[in-house]
């Protein structure tokens, strides 16, 4: 971009003319000690908890421990130039991040600063990092679905707008893949997404951003990144910063989706900060308020009613509800869900998607354990077609799990048991889905219908995947009217069922797979 010289000096002139210097009494303090990004400050008698502090060299910090005669604070960003005796000033402002439409499509750090070198972001407004979640009166029940485009999730553990659904599993089980697929599937739905990467390798974040760009989902997504090399303080505040950015959309009557990847690392960062601040350690050396750390964050994901949206926008937006759906991710160690942080987050969220290493290695991807995964509120929000067809899938898989151990004695089993095992095997195969290939409602309905109606029973179990792919291609090419009809509002009735059956019969008799 070419800069116009007169434009710049005009701008600066305006800024200088509009420069307002307030001669207010400010409280100052002196740095007593600096250690690993934690400073102890003498003075600052009037400081507030969570207040932004100004250090020399355009550096900011946040007051976290208010003690007798001293204040413990974390420095956000580089702290190497801060030394004992430096003057610290109060700013009378709580920590804030820039929010707005301008943030979409950008990769920022938890303070809202650009990380890609695409230039500064001039956001329209800012919001405090920590806000109290909407109260009981301001909320509305979750009754609209958010489609992830993943068959196994949308049919068995449906997620509603405003829900908090945990994605939990060991390392390398595809947790991020599920979340990224969910974001990609929102590209034409108007749902604004925020992906918060906490303590990850910068290369992993770059890979996610590239994938989102490739699939055209970046233009309605904000990526907030506090990578492994950023200070623990930044990793600690990253989820709150991302949440503030997502809440902007919720409070304007839009729908937003936020992914916290992952909260285990945030708890680690918070543990580090707390121990350095000399707060007493508790279980697994986490501080006493690690439950509150996550509960106050996840409580901010909510569906709010139209009255509240109208009130928040001063009447600008009328008759629209807003929602913020959260997909927190937790990484377990060796499948241990009874560790401190996983149990906490499981109890806070409205259900969990449980990913398993064994399933992943057996080639079932996404490696969702259908038995342990639940959604406590999503059922009320599920699309009608998927709800009707998905019920059978869950049942088939549950029966299959009980009988799976006998599968190897197939020849000795009675016909009914054998049929159940066969059905289960095919449904398990059907639930496999490639990464970055989200399905539309109609495509999903077709697959589920094929399984429910028994159309898969005469297809070889190891050909189910190719059968499904060919079927969906056929449906999109030859039955686009039917697909469009189901996609329109996810309806399902006897007419649609008959049309689907006819289409599948036609496909099976006239096509190969």
């Amino acid at each position, binding site marked *: 971009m070419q800069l116009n010289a007169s434009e710049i000096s005009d*701008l*600066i002139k305006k*800024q*200088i003319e509009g*420069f307002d*210097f307030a*001669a*207010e*009494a*400010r*409280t*100052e*303090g*002196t740095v*007593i000690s600096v250690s690993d990004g934690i400073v102890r400050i*003498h*003075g*600052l*008698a*009037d400081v507030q908890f969570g207040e932004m502090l100004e250090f020399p060299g*355009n550096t900011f910090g946040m007051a976290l421990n208010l003690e*007798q*005669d*001293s204040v413990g604070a974390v420095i956000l960003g580089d702290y190497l130039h801060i030394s004992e005796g430096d003057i610290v*000033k109060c700013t009378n402002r709580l920590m804030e991040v820039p929010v707005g439409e301008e943030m979409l499509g950008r990769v920022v750090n938890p303070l809202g600063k650009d990380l890609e070198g695409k230039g500064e972001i001039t956001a329209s407004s800012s919001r405090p990092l920590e806000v109290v979640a909407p109260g009981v009166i301001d909320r509305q029940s979750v009754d609209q679905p958010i489609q992830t485009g993943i068959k196994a999730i949308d049919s068995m553990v449906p997620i509603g707008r405003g829900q908090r659904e945990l994605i939990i599993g060991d390392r390398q089980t595809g947790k991020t893949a599920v979340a990224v697929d969910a974001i990609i599937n929102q590209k034409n739905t108007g749902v604004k997404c925020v992906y918060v990467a906490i303590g990850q390798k910068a290369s992993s974040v770059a890979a996610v951003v590239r994938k989102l760009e490739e699939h055209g989902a970046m233009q309605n997504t904000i990526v907030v990144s506090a990578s492994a090399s950023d200070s623990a303080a930044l990793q600690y505040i990253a989820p709150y910063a991302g949440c503030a950015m997502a809440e902007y959309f919720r409070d304007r009557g839009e729908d937003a989706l936020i992914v916290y990847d992952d909260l285990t690392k945030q708890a680690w960062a918070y543990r580090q900060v707390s121990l350095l601040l000399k707060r007493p350690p508790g279980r697994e050396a986490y501080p006493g308020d690690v439950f509150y750390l996550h509960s106050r964050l996840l409580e901010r994901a909510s569906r709010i009613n139209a009255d509240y949206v109208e009130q928040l926008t001063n009447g600008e937006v009328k008759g629209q509800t807003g929602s913020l759906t959260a997909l927190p991710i937790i990484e377990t160690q060796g499948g241990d869900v009874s560790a401190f942080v996983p149990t906490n987050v499981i109890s806070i969220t409205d259900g969990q998607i449980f990913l398993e290493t064994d399933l992943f290695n057996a080639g079932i991807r996404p490696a969702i354990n259908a038995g342990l995964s639940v959604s406590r509120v999503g059922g009320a929000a599920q699309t009608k077609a998927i709800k009707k067809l998905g019920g059978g899938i869950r049942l088939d898989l549950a029966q299959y799990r009980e009988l799976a151990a006998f599968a190897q004695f197939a020849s000795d089993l009675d016909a009914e048991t054998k049929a159940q095992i066969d059905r289960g095997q095919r449904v398990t195969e059907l639930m496999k889905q490639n990464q970055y290939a989200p399905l539309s409602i109609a495509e999903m309905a077709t697959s589920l219908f094929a399984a429910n109606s028994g159309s898969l029973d005469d297809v070889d179990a190891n050909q189910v995947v190719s059968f499904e792919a060919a079927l969906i291609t056929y449906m999109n090419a030859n039955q686009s009217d039917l697909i469009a009809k189901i996609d329109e509002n996810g309806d399902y009735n006897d007419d649609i069922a008959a049309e689907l059956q006819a289409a599948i019969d036609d496909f099976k008799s006239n096509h190969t797979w």
Partner: protein
Amino acid sequence: MELVTIAKPYANAIIEIAMQNNTHEEWRDVLMAGTQVVNDESMQSFLASPGETKTNKAIAISSLLGKILDRNLSAEEKSFVDILLENDRALVLPSILSLFEKSINTLSDSKVFQVISAYKLSDKEKKQIVSDLADKYTANVSIETFVDESLVGGVVIKDGDKVIDLSIKARVSELNLQLSIN
């Protein structure tokens, strides 16, 4: 700096005793003399030496104080020195003194401000600052003046950790921040 926390209970105790007996002046003299003593380098190495017992150190300090003040220490003053030495807190004396003076000022509704200016203030300017501050805080105001040429112009008024910064230097750095943000 952390000494403030340790000094607080001592200062509070002395204030209460002084109020009971109306001996503010005497206590202030003792604390000032004590500060002078512990700031002395040879005295510091004597206090730090492990060869001397605490009792000996207490006796030495008490007699030194007596000589500086040119009077016998009262029983309370003596036992204050004993307790201080017993707890190994002789080096807190300067902090106790400043806390003591602050409390005395609050009790008498007076405030001491540090005024830092770029050049030496004239008497007229000092008077103006004192009367302005007295209006603002409705207290008996006295000021201590310092000169710091790096301020370029204007004054900085300090009261503990409260700072009213009216210097050119602060304005320039504020403008610098504003321009770099936008």
